[in-house]
């Protein structure tokens, strides 16, 4: 798609990424197409969806990845374009504008977009998660009101669970929602909220009842509601193309009709949202590792030392082989987790946790090794691997730390 527009795009980074993602090379791992084929094991139909996402990424995302990071730009226009393709509510029902596709399709899309910008793909996945929470649990009125706005991404959503005092111990959250006639009055604050301040709808997990998970409800708070305010934009190692801020509630009055699901069901909803969220974030890590691995491979055919291409040194070839093993094993596990969710497998949450644990750690390592293969150039901000590295590092932490991911399969 849009092939000729690509030809005339001028951005240096775009040309790097574009060539790297399309080219195949000779000698050892470099020539074998099936190992690094991002569509490995997929049907023709899935490949078509993946191809759409990849082409869009090459044209509309990758060329800007560096700039968005350097200038801290949250690319709302680009998100609107993704939504026009149906990427705004991928696994929501078609009734109100969702695409009616599967978690596997979503994984392919997020992985593809992450090859061009991990941060943007991550936000897109968070938005999708929120849209799904409304689609799966909302009343007919709530779905009819919100999905037609969220699917085209004319309004954006954020997910608010973590607080300054409760991260992994999410059920210990303290933000209260006291009943006052037809309203809840929210007091408290949420921490590390992705998109905060730039988004329009906040899905807030808050305490309507007693302590513990059963006292938690999910309430939708619209931007500009009196009593809703935001902390400063956090300065981060990565994910710079996305504002992250505290969200503060001070006697914030929210109509009870904004509650998703019955009182006390909020924690379960949040956790169900996170199962998919984990597959999605792991998919973003896959994209980062894929792009980094291909970039390193390409570099190794260009850089010469001791009279030979780096690609001719066996020690470095072995690095690539190990990185490929890390990437492909992660990819297969993530896609299996997606399929487990799609098939309603009761064991799916544990598989999702394993997939998130494995993929985020292995893929970060792939990015790190790719950076090493670039030598000194890898450390320069002009080269993309450092951004994939910085952006994928947080994937080991959010949506459930990898330590919590180790707890889930054991419980």
């Amino acid at each position, binding site marked *: *798609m*849009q*092939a*000729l*527009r*690509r*030809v005339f795009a001028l951005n240096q980074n775009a040309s790097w990424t*574009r*060539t790297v*993602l*399309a*080219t*195949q*090379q*000779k000698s050892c791992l470099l*020539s*074998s*197409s*099936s190992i690094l084929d991002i569509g490995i094991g997929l049907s*023709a*139909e899935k*490949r*078509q*969806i993946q*191809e*759409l996402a990849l*082409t*869009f990424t090459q044209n509309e995302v990758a060329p800007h990845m560096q700039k968005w990071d350097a200038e801290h730009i949250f690319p709302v226009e680009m998100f609107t374009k993704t939504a*026009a*393709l*149906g*990427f705004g509510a*991928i696994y929501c029902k*078609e009734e109100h504008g969702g*695409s*009616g*596709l599967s978690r596997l*399709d979503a994984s392919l899309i997020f992985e593809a977009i992450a090859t061009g910008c991990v941060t943007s793909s991550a936000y897109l996945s968070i938005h999708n998660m929120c849209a799904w929470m409304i689609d799966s649990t909302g009343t007919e009125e709530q779905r009819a009101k919100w999905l037609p706005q969220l699917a085209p991404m004319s309004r954006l959503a954020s997910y608010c669970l973590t607080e300054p005092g409760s991260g992994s111990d999410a059920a210990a959250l303290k933000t209260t929602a006291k009943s006052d006639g037809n309203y809840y009055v929210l007091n408290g604050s949420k921490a590390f909220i992705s998109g905060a301040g730039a988004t329009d709808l906040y899905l807030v997990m808050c305490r309507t009842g007693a302590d513990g998970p059963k006292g938690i409800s999910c309430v939708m708070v619209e931007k500009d509601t009196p009593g809703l305010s935001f902390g400063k934009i956090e300065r981060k190692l990565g994910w710079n193309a996305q504002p992250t801020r505290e969200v503060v509630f001070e006697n914030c009055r929210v109509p009870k009709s904004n509650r998703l699901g019955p009182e006390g069901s909020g924690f379960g909803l949040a956790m169900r949202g996170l199962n998919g969220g984990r597959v999605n974030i792991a998919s973003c890590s896959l994209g980062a590792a894929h792009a980094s691995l291909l970039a390193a491979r390409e570099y190794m055919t260009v850089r010469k030392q001791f009279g030979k291409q780096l690609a001719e040194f066996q020690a470095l070839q072995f690095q690539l082989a190990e990185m490929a093993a890390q990437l492909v094993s992660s990819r297969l596990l993530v896609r299996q987790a997606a399929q487990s969710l799609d098939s309603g497998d009761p064991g799916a949450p544990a598989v999702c946790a394993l997939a998130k644990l494995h993929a985020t750690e292995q893929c970060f390592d792939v990015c790190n090794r790719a950076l090493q293969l670039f030598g000194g150039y890898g450390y320069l901000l002009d080269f993309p691997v450092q951004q994939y590295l910085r952006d994928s590092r947080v994937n080991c932490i959010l949506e459930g730390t990898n330590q919590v991911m180790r707890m889930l399969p054991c419980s």
Partner: protein
Amino acid sequence: YIHIINKADMAASKGLKILVGCKRVIDYAVKVRVKPDRSGVVTEGVKHSMNPFDEIAVEEAVRMKEKKLAGEAVAISVGPPQSQETLRTALAMGIDRAIHVEIPLAQLEKLQPIHVSKLLAKVCESEKPDLVILGKQAIDDDCNQTGQMLAALLDWPQATFASKIEPSQDSKQLRVTREVDGGLETIDVSVPAVVTSDLRLNEPRYATLPNIMKAKKKPLAKMSPDQLGVDLQPRQEVISVEDPPVRKAGAKVESVEDLVGKLREKGLVK
């Protein structure tokens, strides 16, 4: 073979029937490599996609449908089994149905525009399109022949290198703006006609997820060259395929006088 459309006002009729050609080629971004035996280029395991000029042709057909100039748009591809993916892409962009003329592997490498144009001509006999839009050339062989040959075989008018297609002043013909060496040439052609697309005709759309899903239900018919009665005997033999010569270093000059002097030295300027 003559097929004359009713000279009724084009705008009032149910719209033109368009046949669009799509070729599956090596993706433009791939670094193409010559095979060690110099018999051709490496295609196995290499990313392929729809010829960019054909994407533009598909887009134009879909736009003409949206403007109600066209009623039905059919995509056709002559190639290996994987050409079906190319056709699915066309369907996802808004084409109504597709035809795949499958070429056996043995004959694929020797397929030439003369064969493709004969196959297309045969399909035109049964499909009876009012307009055939092809990409002006394929980016793998850069032949720029199929459209012209097809028009000749059908004895239809041709308008190649189109940068704009619209109804003529009296709506009875198509007014096509062509990109030629001297600039832009505008001609009126009667339908049925063959048009080939050039770069600036339009900017192709992305498929959308809903359209990809809808495309699965659209008909995709298969045909063979035998069924169409076309002989694929090669007319040409490729002796060898080689890399272009390595570019030699140039020289920098300090001034216009130096430049002119150097050009004179090399006998390039008197």
